[in-house]
């Protein structure tokens, strides 16, 4: 018996742990990092159509071509418009929801559960509904959101929504805000409730008004939460794909980077271009996420 126990001992060593995660490490190295490298490699070649027989390296030609590709710059500027409106809208809506709930109120659970349910539904399913509701007809023919706006006396807000070139991306942000606000609510609610009650009490004893308490005591405590929210929303926004496809398919007016990548790859079979777009997208996301990962990692170390 004793012998067996001592024989087991080496298993306690650090290497034992490594042994059990090794399959996952190898998988991640191959399927995440390896495939990113592969993608990058394809983006440096001339694989611009199916008929290319002789693969050659063309350097960064595919990337410089992107700069002059009107459809790419269009999808990039669409993405920027979308990101600004989506991030601001979701941030403000979610924050207001959290402000309304954070002190506790009768029926809180009811409201909270409803505010969070959109997160459980797919962008594709919601896209179908918004595709219908955001119809551009106005006046007597109006339906959906335009009709609702007429009914509540906000008829002047009636819009072409995603049909017109001008407002398309902003109206795409509406369903996105609808879907993601709950996430922001959850993060801020946790942020508010992580602040010890004593801090409010102390400020109150010192004679601070409620507004002063929020401004000078509570809001500064929420800075880390705000950072998290911005990172999450930022990377969701840059990757936005399902929602756009669900509402408006591959239409030019609402095309964003991820959708254009799909189109280049599948409709044009231009793999070199598709991979180049994917690499650009990856870099955009990495610029936001990598510092955040490092920041979180450092914080963990202090725990």
């Amino acid at each position, binding site marked *: 018996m004793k012998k067996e126990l001592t024989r087991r001992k080496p*298993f306690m060593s*650090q*290497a*034992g*742990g490594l042994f*059990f*995660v090794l399959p*996952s490490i190898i998988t*991640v190295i191959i*399927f995440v990092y390896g*495939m990113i490298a592969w*993608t990058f490699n394809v983006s440096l070649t001339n694989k611009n159509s199916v008929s290319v027989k002789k693969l050659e390296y063309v350097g960064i030609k595919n990337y410089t071509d992107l700069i002059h590709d009107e459809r790419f710059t269009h999808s990039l500027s669409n993405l920027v418009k979308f990101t600004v409106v989506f991030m601001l809208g979701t941030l403000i809506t979610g924050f*207001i*929801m959290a402000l*309304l709930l954070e002190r*506790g*109120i009768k029926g*809180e659970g009811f*409201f*909270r559960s409803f505010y969070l349910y959109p*997160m*459980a*539904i*797919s962008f*594709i*399913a*919601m896209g*179908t*509904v*918004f*595709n*219908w*509701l955001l119809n551009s*007809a106005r006046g007597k*023919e109006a*339906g*959906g959101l335009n009709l609702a706006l007429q009914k509540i006396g906000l008829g002047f807000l009636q819009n072409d929504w995603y049909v017109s070139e001008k407002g398309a991306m902003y109206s795409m942000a509406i369903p996105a805000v*609808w879907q993601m606000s709950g*996430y922001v609510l*959850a993060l801020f609610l*946790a942020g508010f*409730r992580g602040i010890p009650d004593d801090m409010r009490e102390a400020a109150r004893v010192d004679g601070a008004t409620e507004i002063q308490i929020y401004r000078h005591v509570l809001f500064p405590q929420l800075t880390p939460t705000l950072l*998290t929210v911005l990172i*999450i929303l930022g990377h969701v926004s840059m*990757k936005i794909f*399902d929602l756009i496809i*669900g509402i408006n398919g591959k239409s030019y007016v609402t095309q964003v980077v991820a959708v254009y990548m*799909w189109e280049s790859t*599948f409709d044009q079979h231009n*793999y070199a271009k598709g*991979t180049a777009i*994917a690499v650009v997208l*990856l870099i955009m*996301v*990495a610029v936001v*996420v*990598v510092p955040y*990962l490092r920041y979180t*990692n450092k914080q*963990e170390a202090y725990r």
Partner: protein
Amino acid sequence: MSHDLVDLITTKHDTRNKKRKLNGNEKFWLIFRYVSLGFIWFLVVMPIYVMVINSLKGVKNVYLTNAFKLPEKLDFSAWSVAWSGTNRNSPGGNFFPHGLSDSMTRTLLFVIQSAIISAIIGSINGYVFAKWKFKGSNFVFTMFLFGMFIPYQAVMIPLVRVATNIGINKSIYVLVFAHIIYGIPICTLIFRNYYEGIPNELIEAGRVDKASMIRIYRSIILPLSAPAFVVVIIWQFTSAWNDFLFAIFLTGGSPKLSVATTALNFITGSSNQVYYGVNMTASLIVSLPTLIVYIFLGRYFLRGLLSGSLKG
């Protein structure tokens, strides 16, 4: 984790002094809060309300101009069309050839498989990263986490290529594999965070008894893991169910491999005459499984959701 985000969110917090009567100003703010909450509630519920009521108006008589109006009489015909499709002999013709039934069954089966396998892998990884660290394990863990944030477009073309070469793209297992592989980071993270909360004394006690780390996992850690398994399984279930990107890239337009989201997109994106009653019903059917999971296990869903922020 030092404190749990979901507990923070869901524990009742009333910072108001309850015994005191509200003065006029406070009353005003309370009413203001309820009115605002009610208004937001209305906006949040609106799309699902539109889905539900328009699914009960039948196939033909659904117009945008009365999208918000309740049906005059209940008509479930859109449900049977969305579920089983129509054939050429049916009245109105072959306007909706593929119902959702096949794709829904297919999705359910593949999603459950990938969720369970993901959870098992996540549990083992999480245990190592939390309690059985090796040199460089924190670095490796951060490398994993990056994989959770990448736009999957950056791996998609090679992935499609590999899947085609080994022929797996002809079966739904291509999606099982994709969701397991790209689910490794988040599943590991959720389990690691959960296991970090288990006191080290329990492990120490096991070691004093000369139990191996594997034995400790089996007899101490695993029996405590049920909540984390629920969180991960629900998370993987929901995200695989709602996934569109992997499905469209890996199974393409093949109707034989369509899953809930791609089938729905095929229906609503088709250029045939559009029947909005059927469209609304189909989106509702596709949303129901994840909605039901949310209704019954919302707390666990929320926990998975917040893990994605690396905070809880």
